[in-house]
């Protein structure tokens, strides 16, 4: 057996009443890429952030190279050779790329009490080149970069210290093909230098390809560790969810099925900085997929449809001609919107689950001059039960929920309002299989009730698997309309995107 780099023994961590990690043990050998999977809220990120010193353990022990290891903060961790690339944005937007890479390590560039930026930028350039981010300017302010490049900066920051243990927490979500290549290349580099990698991801294929072994967590508890050939997608999914799941959780039928004679929603000739002459009609009971690359303008179109962003020209209206100009109007007219930025835009984190759910329905709940608190509570509790939101009751704050459960809160919000038209921007982004399945089922049942959905998505299988019609966008324009049929495949859709 080769040398063990990280050893975790009986680790515990709770947040308030939520037991995030319980009696968890793990070993990672030298030169091993170890995967860690589990549904949202299963404790993966909590565990990794404890190893990286971002959070402290309640109980348990960690060892690095056999030495006891109890990091108080990220600086401690980095001194022991542990680097973390986080799930969310882990760079500081208001300072430069180089300043981000050398954060807390600026001393080496000190020259007579001042920081020698020239040397610092040169050094940053070297590192960026080493990790495959040579197109980045070290002097650029981080906020001016796109999400993918910011992730590269973070990778550079983590790689700079030649980590013994590199922790990557669901970073590939934010990366496109090139970015992923860079990431894998760096994982290999750590491996070859005798370090190890703890790799957290939702993407099964990626996991199986990159990792040597994988540990499954469920509800904060260790489930199993699989190695090499044992790592099969279906087996992993079952261990994660804790029950058998269908191979295919998308729609079973392959025919477009909606009321083509009844238009419910119409966009006419929308022009905006990121949209050019976008027109389409949405029908009763239709799931309309809006696909394309991340910057094709589809996300912006979604915002315009809901009245969030201004458009230069064009008209968004219901079938009867009522125009939609602001979110307040849209909601009143029965249009709901799920933002892709769940934590900042779709849910109010520091607000209770109940308040989040009833927010759009408040005007309907009102009886005379009074807002009946009981009706509010009943509505909230009802939806918490119906969607099986995992929580300690509807008074709990949303920030304490896992990603999947937060998304359920967003859905509950619009279901409670009985919105007839839903604009869903990346409805399953960063969500594990269990909740994904539920969301797809929900979309189907909404469709059967005659509600209509516009699904904006960057994920090919989801677009093909769920949509009655797919509108493929490219360069801010609708490039192609594809009807549902068994023949539609990913290659066909992709060719209209690029």
């Amino acid at each position, binding site marked *: 057996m080769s040398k063990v780099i990280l050893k975790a023994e009986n680790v515990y961590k*709770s947040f308030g009443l939520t037991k995030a990690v319980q009696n968890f043990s793990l070993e990672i050998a030298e030169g091993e890429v170890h995967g860690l999977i589990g549904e949202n809220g299963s404790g993966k990120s909590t565990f990794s952030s404890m190893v990286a010193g971002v959070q402290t353990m309640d109980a348990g022990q960690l060892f690095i190279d056999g030495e006891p290891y109890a990091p108080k903060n990220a600086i401690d961790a980095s001194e022991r050779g542990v680097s973390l690339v986080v799930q969310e944005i882990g760079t500081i937007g208001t300072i430069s790329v180089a300043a981000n890479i050398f954060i807390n390590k600026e001393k080496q560039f000190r020259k007579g009490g001042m920081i020698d930026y020239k040397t610092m930028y040169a050094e940053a350039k070297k590192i960026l080149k080493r990790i495959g981010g040579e197109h980045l300017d070290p002097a650029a302010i981080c906020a001016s970069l796109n999400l993918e490049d910011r992730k590269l900066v973070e990778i550079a920051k983590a790689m700079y210290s030649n980590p013994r243990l590199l922790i990557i927490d669901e970073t590939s979500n934010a990366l496109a093909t090139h970015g992923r290549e860079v990431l894998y290349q760096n994982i290999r580099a750590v491996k070859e230098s005798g370090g190890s990698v703890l790799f957290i991801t939702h993407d099964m294929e990626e996991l199986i390809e990159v990792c040597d072994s994988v540990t499954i967590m469920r509800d904060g508890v260790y489930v199993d560790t699989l190695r090499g050939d044992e790592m099969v997608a279906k087996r992993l999914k079952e261990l994660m969810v804790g029950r058998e799941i269908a191979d295919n959780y998308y729609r079973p039928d392959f025919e477009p099925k909606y009321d083509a004679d009844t238009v419910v929603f119409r966009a006419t000739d929308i022009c905006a900085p990121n949209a050019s002459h976008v027109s389409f009609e949405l029908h009763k009971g239709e799931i309309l997929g809006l696909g394309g690359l991340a910057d094709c303008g589809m996300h912006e179109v979604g915002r315009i449809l809901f009245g969030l962003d201004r458009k230069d020209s064009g008209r968004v209206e219901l079938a009867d001609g009522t125009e939609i100009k602001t979110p*307040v109007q849209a909601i009143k007219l029965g249009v709901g919107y799920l933002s892709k930025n769940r934590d900042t*835009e779709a*849910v109010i984190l520091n607000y209770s689950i109940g308040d989040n759910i009833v927010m*759009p329905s*408040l005007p309907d709940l009102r009886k005379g001059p009074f807002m009946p608190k009981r009706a509010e509570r009943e509505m909230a509790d009802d939806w918490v039960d119906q969607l099986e939101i995992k929580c300690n009751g509807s008074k709990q704050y949303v920030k304490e929920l896992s990603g999947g459960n937060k998304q359920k809160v967003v859905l509950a919000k619009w279901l409670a309002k009985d919105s007839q038209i839903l604009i869903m921007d990346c409805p399953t982004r960063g969500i594990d299989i269990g909740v994904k399945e539920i969301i797809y089922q929900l979309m189907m049942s909404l469709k059967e009730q005659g509600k209509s959905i516009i699904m904006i998505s960057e994920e090919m299988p989801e677009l093909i698997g769920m949509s009655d019609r797919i509108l493929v966008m490219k360069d801010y324009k609708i490039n192609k309309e594809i009807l549902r049929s068994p023949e539609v495949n990913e290659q066909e859709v992709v060719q209209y995107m690029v």
Partner: protein
Amino acid sequence: MADKALNAKKYQKSALISDLLPLGGLIAVVILFGILTKGKIFSSFSLQTIYNQSFLYILGGLGCAFLFAQGAIDLSMGAVIALCSILGAFAANQYGIIACILVCLIVGTICGTITGFIYSHTNIAVFILGLSVCFLIKGTLYQITNGQASISIPYADKKMFTPIWISAVVMVVFALIIYYLFEYHTMGKHSKAIGAGIAAAAQSGVDVTKIKWLGFVISGFTCGMVAFFTMVKTGSGGPATGSNFEFNVMIAMILGGMPSEGGARAKIKSCFIGAILIAFYSNGMVLLGADSRVQEILKGVVFIVVIVGTYRMQMQAEGKKAFQFFGLKLAKKNG
């Protein structure tokens, strides 16, 4: 599930503890000064002083409660009060007391409407806006009053509104209206949602522009009310009327448990608890014969201790981080 119900109960309990902290602080201060002054603080004269002192701050707090819930503040309050009082005093001398009341309320509301319009339609930072409006109004006032310190209102008018029951009725009615708007109306709910997360609020059907605007309108109206009652108390209105009012209200609100960032924890009771707490403290100190400068110093220390303490305890009640404060461990750590 029994387990789930139990968890929910525990959760509510921890929330309750952090809710009750400011009230606990008030009771502690009352008892402390009750003992130190050997009960003198409860004499009818002392209580009346405490009432008079806290009354205006309670009104002011109620008026800007919506802004606080949104995570905003109105730093122009003092200046608006000064403006209302001068114009009000002028009206009182020319046209009588009814005109004075109307002028105060209308001028206050207009000021709030204008400031609110700018605040809700631009991206200007709220404290910069408040300060600018404050300078603008104060500068103008010193110009038009020609350095005259203040304008008196007719004594008979002052006398007519002096009885405590009038201010008490006004306060109770106003408090009830604000409480209703805050807890049972979209105005309050939406204000809190803006404080908790403005982008998400906007996407949940909150008319952010309107709510921000109305927050200032209500605050302006209240300034008019405060201006009138300040004149009733002092007998005159001038450029110095209401100076530092906004800061005193702010301190009272924070001491009363109002979170400075607004959001779900914003409560109307904070206006009362904080204002009464400060009034008890100041009077207690006077009764104890403390030097006014020493009083100020102690005030600073006490406020810092109270605010740090409240914050820490709230953190702990939320189960964030275990801590000990002066060796005191109030809330048991969960889990």
